[in-house]
């Protein structure tokens, strides 16, 4: 085991899968010679050559669409979209074609493709570099959405995603790309899609989060525990289909739920979680479900961005309000 950043873990996952399965090809803008603007594909061009690590022209729709074509014809494309803000140039192909191919062919042809992209805040750049629009993708039947929260999960989940027979959108919280190194097993291991992970045990209240918000919740949980509130933190890992069973199990225990996400609140993923828990655990709820999220605005540029994204302080406040209800 070596200590690795999340980007390094991702790089390792890709590299191992490319060695393991010759049908895996990497494609996207600047993924080849440059190794990706975040270096997630560093060294792969040298190791696997230009036919398996493809520097594509600057055109997201045809990147997505040609990946579909490759998957139709037996490859497993691993697409990098440079930032989630640029996904929407290629969204029509994702929504109207990638998501529907298995259905359209009546199960004859599934598309084992993965679309990776950094999402959320974390670089001090201009507009469109901090987006978190997983709710939009999650609403598309036929897709899966994953968002890891630490290096070891990123590796295991990415390997599972590449091996998954259906299209997976893999959201990488760029704020965690290099924030710290953690132990990452060396081998080719999988973390199951659709299963949540209890990252902090607790009995008074449940926090549900994924990707970049998990550390914020862990931080908030510490503060809450200092105040005597035993806080369970559930890392969803998979945003769609999310692990409803694990959420219900925890809420049945705690009776209280706060959902934390980096995306705007309205019509976000938190709403679906709240709606289902409300539907299925109404009588267990000791307080209304709260959502701590970004606001319903364009993600601010760097000067104001920290006022927009959930932080431990806001999560603790929501925990307190829920406890006091």
């Amino acid at each position: 085991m070596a200590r690795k950043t999340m980007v390094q873990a991702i790089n390792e996952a890709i590299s191992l899968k490319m060695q393991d399965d010759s049908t895996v090809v990497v494609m996207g803008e600047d993924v080849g010679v440059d190794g990706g603007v975040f270096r997630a594909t560093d060294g792969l061009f040298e190791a696997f050559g230009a036919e398996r690590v493809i520097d594509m022209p600057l055109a997201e729709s045809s990147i997505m669409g040609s990946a579909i074509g490759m998957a139709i014809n037996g490859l497993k494309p691993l697409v990098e979209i440079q930032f989630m803000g640029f996904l929407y140039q290629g969204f029509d192909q994702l929504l109207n074609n990638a998501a529907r191919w298995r259905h359209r062919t009546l199960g004859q042809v599934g598309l084992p493709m993965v679309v990776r992209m950094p999402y959320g805040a974390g670089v001090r750049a201009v507009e469109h570099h901090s987006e978190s629009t997983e709710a939009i993708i999650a609403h598309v039947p036929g897709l899966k959405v994953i968002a890891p929260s630490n290096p070891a999960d990123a590796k295991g989940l990415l390997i599972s995603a590449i091996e998954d027979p259906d299209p997976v959108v893999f959201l990488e919280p760029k704020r965690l790309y290099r924030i710290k190194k953690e132990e990452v097993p060396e081998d080719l291991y999988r973390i199951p899609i659709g299963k949540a992970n209890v990252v902090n045990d607790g009995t008074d209240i449940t926090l549900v989060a994924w990707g970049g918000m998990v550390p914020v919740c862990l931080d908030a949980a510490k503060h809450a525990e200092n105040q005597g509130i035993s806080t369970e933190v559930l890392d969803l890992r998979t945003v769609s289909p999310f692990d409803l069973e694990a959420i219900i199990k925890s809420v049945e225990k705690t009776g209280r739920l706060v959902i934390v996400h980096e995306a705007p609140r309205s019509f976000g993923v938190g709403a679906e979680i709240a709606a289902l828990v409300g539907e299925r655990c109404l009588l267990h709820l000791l307080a209304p479900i709260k959502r701590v999220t970004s606001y319903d605005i364009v993600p601010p540029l760097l000067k104001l961005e920290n006022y927009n994204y959930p932080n431990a302080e806001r999560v603790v406040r929501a925990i307190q309000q829920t406890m006091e209800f």
Partner: protein
Amino acid sequence: MKSDLMQILNEKGQCSKKPDLTLDQIKELYRRMVLTRTWNDKALSLQRQGRMGTLGSVKGQEASNVGMAFPLQKDDWFVPAFREFGALFVRGVSLKDQFRYWNGDERGGQMPAGSNITPTQVIVAGQLPHAAGIAFAKKIKKEPGMVLCALGDGATSQGDFHESMNMASLFNLPVVFVVQNNGWAISMPVHKQSASPTLAERAASYNMHGARVDGNDVFAVYEIIKKYADRARKEQKPALIELVTYRLSDHTTADDASRYRDPKEVAMWQKRDPIDRLRKYLQESEKWSDADEKAMVEQISQEVEDAVTEFESVTPMQPQEMFANMYHTLPWNLVEQQKEVMELYNGGEVK
């Protein structure tokens, strides 16, 4: 028609040169074209009777439809849009399945196993990047064959057209893009659609070969597709082919073309009918008799009628089949929903 249009078989059924096809092949082309029109007419008539969903007719485009698919080989792929049933039939799709598909039964949209045909693409130009990707995979896997991608004149306006052309050329992909320029994209005539006087000349700006042929002349269509398909297979080079043809019917059964186009234009194109001219050629040059014609027409009518009977007697889909192919393994939400549907409609009818 523009003089820069390659043509072999003219409207009078005369050939400027001997087509590079055996008599049997020519008869087969003819049969396929008549079959396509017969199927098409039948589908339209079923639609009028409420026995078929909304449907786009290929009438007038039979030479383009059949001629483009004829030169394809086993390893080749065919990537259609939605106005190419004639080509699908050549590639082995059954008449019955196309009836089912256009009547809203998903099962009819499934292409025969191993046929290397992608499903009907309704998003205009959405199929172009797929074709490029399939060709890319061929190249990466060093597979033989090429990819033929069909599109309409309207599709050339879409971003996906541009991106795919650029990509195909940059990576030298074995893909041939074939535009059926039928003059119209619903109510938009091609001169209001495309700033380039011909569509074929778009090829130049991608450093690609382009060609423009009479799309109602099946010999010309066959020859040009064969030429560029061979080139794609051998040299891994893409191309853009424009087939100049005409949509003789409304855009679909939901459309009324009399609102936007001059009946004189339609009448003019009726004289250029692809089937009439091939029949004349056969009659005049190949001793095709009225008896031959009659026998063939009867056989085709029967084939189509049989397909109708077959299609109308298939077991209906079960409601729970809506869910079956959303994922390889259904997630919990779909399992629940499928269960609900089975409870609700178990054997019964929806209100």
